[in-house]
């Protein structure tokens, strides 16, 4: 690993750490301002301390790792051995990364956000159909069956079972 990617990676790690720590600190100080301080902090204080100490220790370790990794070290990535335990215990074996991942990820995030915001404005049926149809299209399918027929069938099925049979009040808006 060269110096720049290493620094980038460590910066990202530290930003995430600081976000978690920042929230915890905010919560800790908010709770300690409450009237019955001792009782409220019984658990929260030690837990906050653990987070604080671990955060500092982890930042130090990451910074040191980054400084070292400007000199190539082969052992950090783990050698591809036949060690059953090692492969099986790493919960998510990294598969081949799709080059379209970033594009798909953005499409997924934006569509989902839009869907949730429109759900109780447009109504369940129309917004869900649009969500499925557009997302399947953006993720790369051009088949008429997958982009139009499948979403219509799924949304129709959900509407019939949930709204009509089970009488769940589904979100309603301008349309249905």
């Amino acid at each position, binding site marked *: 690993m060269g110096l720049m990617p290493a620094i980038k990676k460590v910066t990202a790690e530290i930003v995430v750490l600081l976000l978690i720590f920042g929230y915890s600190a905010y919560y800790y100080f908010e709770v300690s301002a409450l009237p019955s301080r001792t009782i409220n902090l*019984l658990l929260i204080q030690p837990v906050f301390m653990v987070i604080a100490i671990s955060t500092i220790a982890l930042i130090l370790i990451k910074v040191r790792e980054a400084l070292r990794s400007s000199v190539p070290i082969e052992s950090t990535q783990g050698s591809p051995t036949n060690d059953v335990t090692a492969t099986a215990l790493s919960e998510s074996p990294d*598969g081949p990364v799709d080059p379209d991942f970033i594009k798909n990820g953005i499409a997924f995030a934006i569509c989902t956000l839009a869907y*949730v915001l429109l759900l109780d404005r447009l109504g369940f049926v129309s917004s869900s159909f649009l969500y499925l149809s557009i997302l399947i299209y953006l993720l790369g399918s051009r088949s008429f069956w997958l982009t139009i027929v499948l979403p219509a069938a799924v949304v129709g099925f959900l509407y019939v079972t949930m709204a009509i049979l089970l009488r769940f009040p589904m979100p309603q808006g301008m349309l249905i």
Partner: protein
Amino acid sequence: MVEFSSLWAGVSLLADWQVILMMVLGLLFGIITGAIPGFSTPLAISVMLPVTFSMEPLAAIVFLTCIYAGGNFGSSISAILINIPGSPQAIVTGLDGYPMTRQGRGNEALGFAVASSAVGNLIGAIFLILIMPLLVKFALSFGPPELFLVGVIGLTVIASLHKSFLKAAIAGGFGVLLGTIGMTSAGSTRGTLGFYELLDGIPLIPALIGLIGFSELFLMLQRTYVAGSAASNVSQGRQDLSQLLRGFKQTFRHPFTLIRASTIGVLIGGLPGAGGTVASVVSYNEGRRYSKNGANFGNGEPEGVINAEAANNASEGGALALMLSLGIPGGLATAVLIGGFMLQGLIPGPRLFLDNPALLYGVMSAQVFASFMLLFFGLLVSFYAAKIIQVPTVVLIPLIALFSIIGTYAVKLLMFDVYIMLVFAVVGIVLRKFDYPLIAVILGLILGPILDGQLMRTYQGAGELSLSIFLNRPMSLLLLGILAISLLPLVVRLVRGYLKQKEAVNG
């Protein structure tokens, strides 16, 4: 010991066509989703969680536990046929299962997997029924200090299993803090940021669906696990059925392997944080040591498949025992199951067993019946497996996303819950990306209120909080001992790392 009257009451509760139907549907859903690469068992359970809201308690819980049982087997289908485990617990199954496929014995391997999964599940279920009353008796003698310590043990075991202890500690602590949000029994309001919806605490189901389910969809996006080219190699033909049945029958020629692997599975499943993956790894390694075909492990040895599958299905019995008796989830799947109980207004733990013995015996005996059903449905799905594993993620991701969102909404008919779900999905994506153990956050979220409440009661009972409260009670002393032992691997690892570093500096 086992109360036979309650056991009988539980079994007779199962004699209801709705419950049986839910068992069949749960198993089928579990096996099929398990076989789809990327569709993990916890995800499958979390998608179906909202559906159970309107069901009767027994039908709902049995449905979810059957998804769990089915998923444990289903994930081995894709591991065997295309060397892509449906969920992590099947990685070891693929070590011998996939070489068998390449030798043209894929269906035989599936036969072995079905039979050993069912036997493992059965042994796990029997263990569950036998051990539960004892565990509950033990747990009932616990007061607030002990319950607090049990929670701490649950958290630390997970921390010591993850490769970065610090990250696990941060994730666990973060989860605990989130778990304490809301109004306390003393009437203070903590961390709600002004949202009155959070007064009851962070709603668990949306948080679980977001953290476990929705964030996994993002992970699925970056994998081209669409199985297109790999799956087309899977042979289909008439001779498949006889091969399938041959493997199925031959499994029973290895009774000792089955029993050993299942026992290992049950015991490891009972440890918080370990779960099916670790169980199958340990069982596989032990199996290789004892078997006369040990040298052939990894090259398509059926005994390897038996060892892995029996253990990962049996681990479910141990995990359920832990979850039902103490209310502590050992892994992601049982964490979501706790959500399923809570939807029905039931809190897993020793009290549940006293208040609802028939229900719990019903749930446990359903596992026994599910094992036999698994034999049949496992074979059935295996026969059509090649078609299932080809579901493209292009379709899968939007559908699961839609179900998660609508499901989250349907539980309480609140859009607020959907927003919470999305917030937790983002948290989950970030934590996964930077390799924080999600299970630690979830455990913290579930255990946070318990830890907080019990610690408060300990404090109020004694008027102060000191170590002597914990040291003067025999049970809590015992638990402190267990806590120390559970931290042992961590200490060993830290010392070893330190020595290695010193060596490197000196060298």
